[in-house]
């Protein structure tokens, strides 16, 4: 008698799997990556290649040493490496990039249990580690198309000097991290992720909205604050990182709100000109708390 396979339902599944999601994120990130290389030239290209490759190799070696299944094809190490490259100064010495990448995939991700278990966004945590280790190299910025060092728009604003116009900021023709400068290209990537329903509105909208409104209320230029620094990159690509943000819609909104508040506090009252990195890391810590306390109402149950 022929016996057929049995399994629990549902017997059909949606087409999209985790690996496909990761590769779509990679595709979306390629727009700001190409933009960064266009503005900052060969050093940027080498940094992207080195950091991404280091992340992949680092994860592979770590998984092999830890006797875990090697899951390089799932694309998550590529995403981590690419994201890290995008938030580094374009002229950062390559060895520092390598160390950052390894810190991201081993220290921040692997040691916590791998994909799905890390508390902090690996790329942002690695950037914080690099900033603490090499503060000068990590805050050395160059002008696009030139090798002349200069200050970022947010720093210029902080010390009260003239800043680039909105249009320059939108196109990305300003100093800054490798992939954070061109708002246009970041938005193209974000639109791809929205259309593919890979990211949703609550966190980015709450994050950008809070920065805009708070800047306005505190007497700063709201549009300038949205367009400069790493806000757009952080809001669409970091505050939407599945693993390190809450799972509910309401939770994600609260997460974005918190990121906005911390960013504004650091930018306007803190010692650094930019607060996106630390604000998201700070809110990452709150994610488990938000997940426990912000739950949807269950049908047929009172709150």
């Amino acid at each position, binding site marked *: 008698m022929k016996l057929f*396979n049995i*399994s629990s339902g549902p017997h*059909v599944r949606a087409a999209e799997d985790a690996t496909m999601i990761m590769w779509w994120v990679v595709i979306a990130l390629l727009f700001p990556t190409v933009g960064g290389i266009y503005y900052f030239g060969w050093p940027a290209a080498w940094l992207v290649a080195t950091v991404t490759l280091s992340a992949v190799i680092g994860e592979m070696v770590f998984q092999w040493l830890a006797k875990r299944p090697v899951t390089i094809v799932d694309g998550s190490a590529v995403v981590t490496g690419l994201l890290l490259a995008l938030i580094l100064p374009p002229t950062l010495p390559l060895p520092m990039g390598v160390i950052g990448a390894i810190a991201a995939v081993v220290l921040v991700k692997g040691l916590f249990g791998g994909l*799905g278990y890390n508390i902090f966004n690996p790329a942002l945590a690695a950037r914080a580690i690099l900033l603490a280790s090499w503060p000068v190299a990590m805050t050395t910025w160059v002008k696009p198309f030139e090798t002349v060092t200069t200050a970022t728009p947010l720093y210029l604003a902080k010390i009260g000097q003239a800043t680039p116009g909105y249009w320059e900021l939108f196109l990305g023709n300003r100093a800054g991290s490798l992939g954070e400068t061109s708002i246009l290209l970041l938005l193209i990537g974000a639109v791809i992720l929205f259309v593919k329903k890979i990211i949703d509105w609550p966190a980015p909208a709450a994050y950008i909205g809070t920065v805009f409104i708070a800047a306005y209320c505190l007497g700063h230029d709201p549009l300038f604050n949205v367009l400069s620094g790493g806000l757009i990159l952080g809001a669409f690509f970091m505050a939407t990182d599945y693993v390190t943000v809450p799972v509910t819609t309401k939770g994600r909104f609260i997460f974005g709100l918190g990121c906005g508040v911390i960013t504004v506090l650091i930018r306007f009252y803190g010692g650094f000109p930019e607060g996106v990195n630390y604000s998201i890391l700070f809110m990452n810590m709150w994610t488990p708390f938000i997940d426990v306390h912000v739950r949807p109402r*269950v049908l047929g*149950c009172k709150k």
Partner: protein
Amino acid sequence: MSGLRLKECKELTERLPVQEAALPTRVVLPLQQSLGCPNDPIVNVGDEVAEGQKIADTQKTVAAPLHAPISGRIIAIDNLPNACQYPVASLVIEAIPGRESQGLVGSHWQVDEFTPEQIRKVVREAGIVGLGGATFPTHVKLSPSKPIDTVIINGCECEPYITADHRLMLERPAELLEGARAIARAVGAENIIVAVENNKQDAVQVLLDHNKNHNLKIVVLPSIYPQGGEKVLIRKLLGREVPSGGLPLDIGVIVNNVGTAVAIADALKTGRPLIKRVVTITGSGVKKPRNLLARIGTSFAELLAQCGGITDDAAKIIMGGPMTGLAVASLDMPVVKGTNCLLVLNQRDARDYEEKGCIRCGRCVRACPVGLLPNFLADFAKLRDYEKLVDYHLADCIECGCCAYVCPSRIYLVQYFKGAKQELKTRRAVCR
């Protein structure tokens, strides 16, 4: 709380009229075909039985008697494997060659002539259970302990592939509406709502035409899975919520499937017990999909043979729909009262997925129609943290499968939930 728009795959059978399946030569009848208590046989091995004769019954309330689907001889009363390959007490009837089943001579009563008590009695004696798949004994549902104001006749049929209810609505609208009125009469309800999804516009039209002389409400809903789940449907239609752990009757509602309504009308008008039901036989693994009116107890193999057989690459046999159906190992299984569909998927459609780690994307949270957090529930189930499972409302899960359907890590969420629910039930029993 959104639900899903699924690929419907109903085009395989939605235009095919229900045809009477060939009379089986042998039927296998598990004694328990409803939720609740099992029946005891009231015939012996060797007895001759006539089509429609009651052959198993019980004194227990939550049960429904069983009738002979064909005329023949009882050849065995034994433990036979059920759809889960688990041995259950079953009756086997073999047709006697040369002696055809005569069919039942019906009487012709009007639904309005029955008192509520008579309706309940006829429904019980006819062995009618919820035909949407849940198989709750209908006469129990018609004896509510609380006042009922609304009867919902569920014609959503939101699971992909299945078209049994769709065809019934098209082909037997008069009986459907009569059955609905009988249900409302039995429970003393004022309002009757027939809910149909908008992927069945032709059925809506037919029902509207037949409703001209009546005042039933025909409501057309967008086609969203799992709208046919009664808790979800009640919220959508009435804005009321069945309390956690409660029943629709707690909020003055009862929900019956369209097939059940038709069976009730048949029983009242002709005295016929429930011995046949419409089964959609479909899927990529069936050569010629059909809607068949099959005798209860007919084997899957026999029905599939009348559909051109299964393809060479048939990989999975599912009793019910693709979302909540039960995969069975062998074609040797009989149709039971709750079998609305026999779905055969080929190798390509019945892929086995490798489960990966959760990436916390939250798709399951957004898909869950009752507002649960499936990702955390799965973690707690794996950790056997039963306190947390209760705290996170595992008991309110309707097992619709939306979470597992959308999961990009292919986690077998429903499987964990079913297992954990079973374990919780056992623990509670032990505690008492």
